[in-house]
């Protein structure tokens, strides 16, 4: 998909007076550019939204339905259009889901702004009324929301599946939704029930199998094989695991060194010494009863040599090498052990314990799984499988969205209906509110109320329904007080969307509204683009 061709507005500064005509032009150009971005992602909204194929400059191909990812890869240049991309990123950071929604709402609001501007309303007036709209909208949404308990697993799964339904992997939502819920709930710390750190959930991607084979592992998974070049064990029960940050290889000093060999016997002695040195280390390790070693990657020298691997194999120790330094914290947290940075500190109390460590072959490749960890930390690992890289990547992105949705619910325990119901209700209530406002504000609020109908409109359009018929009926139902009436995309009609189990966290909706208005206000207030150093 081609990025909208937005030519760079050429602004040569310093030489002349800037007349007002130019300002209108710049504002106009900004709005048009930003809307072009919004239109680009519009068709991927909703359960029947389409995917985009992005081929990056490096020739890599990505297929995705995730608004934030699409925009991120689009490489837009126009500053105002860039702000919409940023908007989507912020939504991703704040709520994780609704990244397309927020951009579509932003685009719709901008469209209304253009009409308002052309009828001669001052931008700051529009901006102020937008601010009021956003405050009011949050109130309306909060009033619509239903509280949810974390123990209510059903509701959580429902909202995760709503998020997953719009993705490529929607047919697996029955599998992925409970998985996401369990993963998040398992990392919630009872001491701090409002906080979830998604970094405690590790997602390991492995090519092969289908998405169906995706599983949650109570333990650790390494996307590496055990080093058994010398025939070491590949399965250890009652494992005692050590995470080491030193190297089992011949000594190397930080200062440059060279060994001077002057005759043949000396060479022999050196080789022997090397062997003894390594053997000594391994004996110390073995003495503590350790039988699984996780070795941190080292850039300075080899973490293990063939020689040390051989001795380790002899000692029946399973070795996983090249563990990244960043992962150490996650690993130690999970295994409830301490990293060991020096052989002298190798003590039993620093080891972690697990029932089983084994190498499992998946397709062509192998992974190492650690399960049955004693006193396991509050972390979890999800192993994502898929038949090709594109599917796996998309599955990971979708899973991330689902995880974020659950996280939102942990932070703010309210659910709201999906399927365009909140937007149409907002539109109705804001429309009513506009009538009691005075002056320009009332006029602006009314237009923005109409703008919010873009969500149900787009949902219907993407699902191949008649958008006008659907939106008008929806409006009608809401006017009669059915505030949870929404578009049932599967049946192609309007039903009570709460009964259909289409729900989403309140946080996603509120943050979409507040972020979109904040961004639109910023675009509105710009009257010039200045090229600088």
């Amino acid at each position, binding site marked *: 998909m081609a990025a909208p061709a937005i030519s760079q507005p050429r602004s040569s500064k310093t030489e002349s007076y800037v007349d007002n005509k130019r300002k209108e032009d710049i504002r106009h150009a900004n709005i048009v550019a930003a809307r072009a971005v919004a239109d680009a992602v519009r068709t991927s909204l909703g359960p029947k939204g389409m995917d985009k194929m992005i081929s990056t400059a490096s020739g890599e191909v990505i297929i995705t339905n995730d608004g934030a990812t699409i925009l991120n890869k689009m490489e837009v240049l126009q500053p105002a259009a860039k702000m919409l991309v*940023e908007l989507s990123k912020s939504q991703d950071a704040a709520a994780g889901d609704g990244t397309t929604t927020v951009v579509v709402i932003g685009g719709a609001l901008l469209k209304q702004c253009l009409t308002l501007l052309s009828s001669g309303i001052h931008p*700051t007036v529009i901006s102020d009324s937008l601010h009021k709209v956003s405050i009011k909208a949050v109130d309306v949404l909060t009033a619509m929301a239903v509280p949810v308990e974390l123990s209510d697993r059903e509701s959580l799964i429902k909202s995760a599946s709503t998020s997953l339904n719009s993705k490529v992997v929607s047919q697996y939502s029955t599998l992925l939704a409970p998985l996401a819920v369990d993963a998040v709930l398992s990392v919630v710390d009872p001491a701090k029930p409002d906080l979830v750190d998604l970094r405690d959930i590790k997602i390991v991607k492995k090519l092969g199998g289908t998405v169906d084979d995706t599983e949650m592992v109570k333990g650790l998974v390494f996307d590496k094989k055990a080093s058994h070049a010398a025939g070491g064990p590949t399965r250890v029960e009652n494992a005692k695991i050590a995470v080491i940050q030193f190297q089992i290889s011949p000594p190397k*000093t930080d200062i*440059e060194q060279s*060994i001077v060999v002057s005759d043949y016997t000396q060479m022999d002695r050196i080789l022997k*010494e090397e062997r003894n040195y390594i053997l000594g280390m391994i004996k110390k390790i073995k003495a503590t009863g350790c039988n699984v070693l996780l070795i941190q990657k080292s850039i300075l020298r080899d973490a293990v040599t063939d020689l040390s691997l051989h001795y380790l194999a002899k000692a029946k120790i399973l070795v996983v090498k090249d563990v990244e330094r960043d992962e150490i914290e996650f690993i130690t947290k999970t295994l409830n052990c*301490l*990293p060991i940075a020096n052989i002298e500190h190798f003590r039993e109390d620093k080891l972690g314990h697990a029932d089983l460590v084994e190498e499992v072959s998946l397709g062509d490749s192998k992974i190492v799984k650690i399960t049955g960890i004693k006193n396991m930390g509050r972390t979890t690992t999800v192993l994502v499988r898929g038949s090709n890289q594109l599917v796996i990547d998309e599955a990971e992105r979708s899973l991330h969205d689902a995880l974020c949705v659950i996280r939102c619910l942990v932070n703010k325990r309210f659910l709201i209906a999906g399927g365009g119901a909140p937007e149409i209700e907002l539109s109705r209530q804001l429309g009513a509110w506009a009538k009691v406002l005075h002056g320009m504000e009332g006029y602006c609020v009314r237009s923005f109320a109409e703008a919010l109908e873009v969500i149900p409109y787009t949902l219907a359009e993407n699902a191949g329904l008649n958008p006008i018929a659907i939106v008008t009926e929806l409006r009608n139902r809401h006017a009669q007080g059915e505030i949870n009436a929404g578009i049932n995309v599967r049946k192609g009609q309007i039903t009570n969307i709460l009964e259909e189990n289409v729900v989403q966290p309140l946080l996603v909706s509120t943050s979409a509204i507040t972020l979109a208005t904040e961004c639109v206000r910023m675009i509105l207030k710009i009257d*010039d683009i200045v090229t600088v*150093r």
Partner: protein
Amino acid sequence: MAVERILKDEASEEKGERARMASFVGAMAIADLVKTTLGPKGMDKILQSTGRGREVTVTNDGATILKSLHIDNAAAKVLVDISKVQDDEVGDGTTSVVVLAGELLREAEKLVAAKIHPMTIIAGYRMAAECARNALLQKVVDNKENEEKFKLDLMKIAMTTLSSKILSQDKEHFAKLAVDAVLRLKGSTNLESIQIIKKPGSSLKDSFLDEGFILDKKIGIGQPKRIENAKILVANTAMDTDKVKIYGARVRVDSMSRVADIEAAEKQKMREKVDKIIAHGINCFVNRQLIYNFPEELFANAGILAIEHADFDGIERLALVTGGEIASTFDNPESVKLGHCKLIEEIMIGEDKLIHFSGVAMGQACTIVLRGASHHVLDEAERSLHDALCVLSQTVNDSRVLLGGGWPEMVMARDVDELARVTPGKKSHAIEAFSRALVAIPTIIADNAGLDSAELVAQLRAEHQKEGCAAGIDVITGSVGDMAELGISEAFKVKQAILLSATEAAEMILRVDEIITCAPRRREDRM
């Protein structure tokens, strides 16, 4: 006979009328560029960088806009400079000063066209500026004695400053933040101890002031995540082995065990260093450089919280606020001043984990955490808040306060007008022009808000004929209002700086009658 060329080939020279025209036009173009950002309903600009990455900044801050412009015109550069100085000196009013200078020049241009000598104009401007300053001095209010009232003044000033920025919607919230932060400084203008941390996500309203210090770093693995009554050693030292820093230094050995010995010796040295550090009786160690795995483990064993790779800014501030010193040798534990704080803990803001030091030794310190939709919003919010903090910290020292909303300009204009009437000679034209330039500021504020400026300014002028009037432009309702009631105040120091530097800049540009552009230095032609 023709004179031979005096200047180099590519140098150019403009004289007399042409030179003056060139500088007038340049200065006015700059003033016009930033004019629309003035006032509570001023607009923003996008600054698009032509450098790599094509970064985009959205701003309303005059100094930021001007600082980043490509400017060729000499006179325009003068204006950019006064805006910079204004920014350094008082922090706010960076747009106003440029606009006022631009207006003064616009008036001067007309006078020059009417065949009044620039020197006469300058003399007139000087008299007028002096008179305007006196007019302000008579009207200032000083509430230094009354703490309650003074705090209220500060609140008002902060809100007035913020109302023209992106933070305007939440100005009360931010004004309170800024006032609290500045009052903690207890009169010092050292804004260093107010730390601003920006975290994307959530909305501006969720920004908060924290009475402590927040470091954007992680705690080492296996170390305590919470320490009470912390003793902190702030250091800048290499935590890998001490190397002989002579190029080509190497050791020669003849067996593997010797290499192992040397390695062990290196480890031992490190251990000694760590032991020395531990001997300071600390429970928190912050280093500017990396702490490698081995020392990290040693610290963890000793139950010490070690933070690695804190940036320069971070450790300097940390040393400042905890009252410690940055150490780099550890041989004399007695001579090193340790930092103290009541509690160190890990907190989460948005998605990130940060380290929070509360109950620090220096009570002045505090951290403002800004939250906002995107980086653009956050950057602009930081600039706005910085302006407010600058103005407030200046006001704490010079507590004289004026009303805002175009009120000071009208007061000045009235007195200057009177002066013009009693001044004999050509100078009176210049004085009159000065007054017109002053009135231009409320006019622009009204214009930016989309109001009928001619009508409003005329009303204002009529109001100001009365003694003790507090009328100014109320942009929100679009009418003339009582500034004292609306609580719109400005610091006297800012206004005075605007007046004086704008006059000086205008004077300087007026004096110019020849521009000599030197031949550019030869260099590679690059984009």
